[in-house]
């Protein structure tokens, strides 16, 4: 049953990632912590591996739509190695409880970001009402 729940949250994470641009990892991590009893740092580690494949599929699809500036992506990705090493080192140093609370704060931050985006999007709604295709 826990496996089903974790898989379902994974599915949802992928789907939300495709729909709203964020999603994958921020749901993979709690899926692993809550349903599969993984320590926070281990859940984060495993989430990163899953993200490699999900992001690769997402990037491939986006590339097909012409939305990927390949060189810019490679520059950022190449440079990411330093930041990643720092982040992973901290994740492995602080206590599990601290990391869990920091992650909870991240969830709330992203939730606020989403709500803000919805509010912003609903303001100019009047001008969006151009007649669509029949």
């Amino acid at each position: 049953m826990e496996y089903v729940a974790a898989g379902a949250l994974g599915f949802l994470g992928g789907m939300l990632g495709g729909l709203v641009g964020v999603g994958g990892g921020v749901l993979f991590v709690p899926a692993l912590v809550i349903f599969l009893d993984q320590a926070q740092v281990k859940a984060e580690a495993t989430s990163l591996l899953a993200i490699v494949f999900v992001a690769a599929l997402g990037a491939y699809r986006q590339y097909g739509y012409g939305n990927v500036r390949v060189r810019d992506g490679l520059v950022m990705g190449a440079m990411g190695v330093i930041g990643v090493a720092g982040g992973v080192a901290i994740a492995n140093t602080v206590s599990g409880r601290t990391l869990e609370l920091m992650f909870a704060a991240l969830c709330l931050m992203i939730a606020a970001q989403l709500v803000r985006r919805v509010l912003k999007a609903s303001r100019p709604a009047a001008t969006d009402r151009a007649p669509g295709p029949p």
Partner: protein
Amino acid sequence: MTRDRLLKLLLIGTLGGFFSGLFGVGGGTVIVPLLIFWLAFGEREATGTSLAAIVLIAAYGAIDQAIYGNVNPGYAALVGVPALAGVVTGAAVQQRIPERAVSLLFAVLLVATAAELIF
């Protein structure tokens, strides 16, 4: 590529990487808005380009965490394989469901997750 632009990309990559490594997420939460505000990317381009960077960033993170002995490949498949199906499904239903409702639902899910982790 101008020097200013290159420096901004390098800084965004570093910040996104740090975020990704610390939280086990992709880092898009940081990368996408910075691409939009600092480099005037459109939202779709920012998301697409961010995903390309995340493939590399998450790969470094996974390797780094594997060295610490924290990665569980079986569990990665358990959430990752349904997630791949989710990406395809999400794209297929995108035109038919209101993005605002999805965003709000996602926000509620995240608040519930935060509560579960805190208590």
